[in-house]
């Protein structure tokens, strides 16, 4: 069964550094999402992306964050000047946008900011 893949599974970075989290969505999907889950908290929406544009973003997704689809298969989340509070599990998801079709999630990247 097709799946969303994310790399790396764990990223450790010094505070203030930039990180890029990578995702390969399901191949025929057109809608892409990033969510995050801080330890002990809910899974929360960050951003959605379609047709090379951001469709919607949350209050969390400020100028520190950016997303890109650099080629036909990858979808990336860049976090500039990381802060301690950016430590979380980051999940990528995709959907085909069909009527009441679910979003499918990857296994996540655990981001640890030191």
């Amino acid at each position: 069964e097709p799946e969303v893949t994310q790399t790396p599974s764990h990223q450790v970075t010094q505070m203030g550094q930039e990180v890029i989290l990578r995702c390969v969505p399901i191949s025929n999907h057109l809608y892409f999402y990033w969510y995050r889950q801080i330890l002990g908290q809910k899974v929360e929406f960050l951003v959605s992306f379609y047709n090379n544009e951001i469709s919607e973003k949350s209050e969390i997704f400020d100028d520190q964050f950016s997303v890109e689809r650099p080629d036909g298969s990858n979808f990336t989340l860049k976090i500039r000047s990381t802060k301690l509070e950016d430590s979380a599990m980051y999940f990528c998801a995709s959907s085909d946008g069909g009527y009441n079709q679910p979003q499918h999630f990857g296994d996540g990247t655990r981001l640890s900011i030191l």
Partner: protein
Amino acid sequence: DQQVKQNSPSLSVQEGRISILNCDYTNSMFDYFLWYKKYPAEGPTFLISISSIKDKNEDGRFTVFLNKSAKHLSLHIVPSQPGDSAVYFCAARHGSGNTGKLIFGQGTTLQVKP
């Protein structure tokens, strides 16, 4: 953000019995609801969903019930199996069309005892 709530952090049932997981929501504009299952070190896996125009959806051992007047949905698993032990997230779709963001509950940890 308390728009989707799962008030039971954990549930323990005996193998073969019914598991009932509950979820409440506050936003009457939600039009699509989903249940995801999550194992440790994996991403949320889509389980079953229901449109707001229905009150029941069944898929094998899994049935989701929606009570719109009460803004309540539940997931029934029968019979429960040890492999069902996981964290279960309720999610609601927010926004227009089929591609809106998902709002998650806090999750309920289900333990099915052999």
